[in-house]
């Protein structure tokens, strides 16, 4: 380990949910890779399929309700081909997952210690004593001040930040290569968010793990991510290093997002608003550029009929060629955007 090699390779993965007997793609044809020692951030609006991607990797979907295609190549194994038992060798051991809602993600009736050591029951041969030690060690590692006390407590006795730390402890208990963190800080205060992100980063350094960080907060991405993938409507629209994305955003969607953030300098101006809404799953356009309806001023021929990924820079990929001719309306006219 320790090399900077890629170890997770997501190839052409689509996940479709069954709604009233029909399947609808929540994510379609996703390609991504994750390397050791890096934090890959996935950003996008609510409902664009971020969590679906994460749960697809974790194999948490009910096979009778979903249809998954493609390949998730994890250290040479295609996870999607595994059965439940096979998956369990990876979950918890090689892949850890952190969920958004820290209260409901913990079993309310079990002590923190039991919940952490449970993961070790299945992936290690530790004795009870070793497990206990490891639990304390982990709690310490995620920044809990009094591990002994906390280990003995129940989830409801902890604050949100503490609970999230416990969940992180569970995720890293077996030193996984990959940690998937699905909006780990959305429910938390900024100060705690900063601490949690620090913990994540420290862990990544220590374990040489790769982290997929899912969030919709561009600030968090900018602070933590090495690489960023921007998702829109189930597809990746742009991917690149953090600098590339923030300093030279290409895709109209990325640029719109950045523009709608309240900025320090332009205090009293109106914010940029993306026209229209994210289409719902059932009304998702199946061909063409899915973002096209939201930048109607761009001529139709600016979009590719079947959008493909274009490498614009080293490791900087953009979906569709529309970025080339894209400008904001006010950049031409200087009018209001509402």
């Amino acid at each position, binding site marked *: 380990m320790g090399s900077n090699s890629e170890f997770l390779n997501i190839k052409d993965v689509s996940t479709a949910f069954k709604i009233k007997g029909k399947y609808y793609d929540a994510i379609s044809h996703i390609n991504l890779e994750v390397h050791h020692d890096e934090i890959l951030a996935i950003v996008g*609006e*609510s409902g664009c399929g971020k969590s679906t991607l994460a749960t697809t990797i974790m194999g948490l979907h009910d096979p009778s309700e979903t249809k998954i295609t493609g390949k998730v190549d994890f250290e040479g194994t295609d996870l999607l081909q595994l059965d439940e038992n096979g998956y369990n060798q990876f979950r918890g051991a090689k892949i850890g997952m952190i969920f958004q809602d820290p209260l409901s993600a913990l079993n309310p009736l079990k002590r923190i210690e039991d919940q952490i050591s449970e993961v070790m029951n299945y992936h290690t041969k530790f004795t009870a004593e070793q497990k206990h030690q490891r639990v304390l060690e982990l709690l310490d590692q995620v920044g809990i001040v009094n591990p002994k006390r906390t280990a003995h407590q129940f989830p409801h006795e902890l604050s*949100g930040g503490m609970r999230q730390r416990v969940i992180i402890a569970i995720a890293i208990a077996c030193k996984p290569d990959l940690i998937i963190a699905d909006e780990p800080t959305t429910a938390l*205060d*900024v*100060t705690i*968010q*900063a601490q949690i992100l*620090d913990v994540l980063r420290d862990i990544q350094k220590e374990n040489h793990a790769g982290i997929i960080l899912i969030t*919709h*907060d*561009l*600030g*968090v991405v*900018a*602070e933590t991510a090495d690489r960023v993938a921007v998702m829109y409507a189930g597809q990746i629209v742009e991917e690149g290093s*953090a*600098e590339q994305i*923030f*300093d030279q955003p290409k895709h109209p969607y990325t640029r*719109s*997002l*950045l523009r*709608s*953030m*309240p*900025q*320090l300098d332009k*205090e009293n101006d*109106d*914010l*940029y*608003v*993306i026209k229209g*809404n994210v289409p719902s799953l059932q009304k998702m356009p199946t061909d063409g550029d899915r973002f096209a309806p939201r930048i109607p001023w761009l001529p139709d021929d600016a979009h590719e009929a079947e959008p493909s990924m274009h490498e614009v820079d080293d490791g900087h990929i953009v979906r569709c060629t529309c970025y080339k001719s894209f400008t904001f309306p006010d950049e031409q006219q200087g009018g209001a955007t*509402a």
Partner: protein
Amino acid sequence: MSLVEIKDLKVHYPIRSGFWNRITDSVKAVDGISFNIEAGETYGLVGESGSGKSTTGKSVVGLEKVTSGSVMYKGKDITKKSNRKSLDYNHDVQMIFQDSLSSLNPRKRIEDIIAEPLRNFEHLSKDEEKLRVLQLLDIVGLDADALYKYPHQFSGGQRQRIGVARAVATNPKLIIADEPVSALDLSVQAQVLNFMKKIQREFGISYLFISHDLGVVRHMCNNIAIMNRGRLVEIGTRDDIYNHPMHIYTKRLLAAIPETNVSQRAEHRAQRLAVEEVYREQQDKYYDKDGQAYPLVQITPTHSVALPEDLVEQLKHEGEVQA
């Protein structure tokens, strides 16, 4: 005279315990805060979760039973129910809620939701009322189609705009906006913030804008109060707070805001850790022995900070406090 003057407001929730289930203690959700909201301004109230922001907001709008202190409006203390009644207080002061879905009755049509305050305070004919609702919808950028639909048929941003429409229906003087955008996506958030600003411009409304997002607050507010553990630790203009924070808590809060400037993230982090460090070391200094903030001390005409006396002295020496 300010539009609303909040004086030494306290809201304590009783904690019952012991054998007879008597009140043995209380959660001091709001513990003696004072500030004024001027007509036409947006007043920001910032703080961590649980610091008492919502409770303050609810007290101002009259939803919460106040333990002590007063909220003066038009010379009357509206913490008393009778005064609220006689003033038709809620005709003038309205509220926008954080959770747009739960704040709209799922069983009512949009028309009825928006018309609700109208029906209670203004007695219009059916057509007048409908026209008014349509105009309100138009102002918040929704089509007439919305009239007979139900809340769940709208997106979060649209719902929040319906909430705004309801709040402005009676042309209030003040709207309490309790985290109106924190549940929304970035692009939708922008939409709602724009509308709030537009309406303020057009109707001359004041906002008490409650949020924990310092970025949004900076975008929206002229005056800001920082709340911590039920007390105010710092109030001042936007410039005072963002460029000259005095209280250690404010500093820490500001340092924790993620920076979108990728190239400087290392420095930013170092700076944040430094502030954290200071915070850990000097925490005791800024809070009294019960862990509560000190009373506010005016430092400039616009800027007040909850500092212990010795620190104030020290600052005076350094000439930072203007006499």
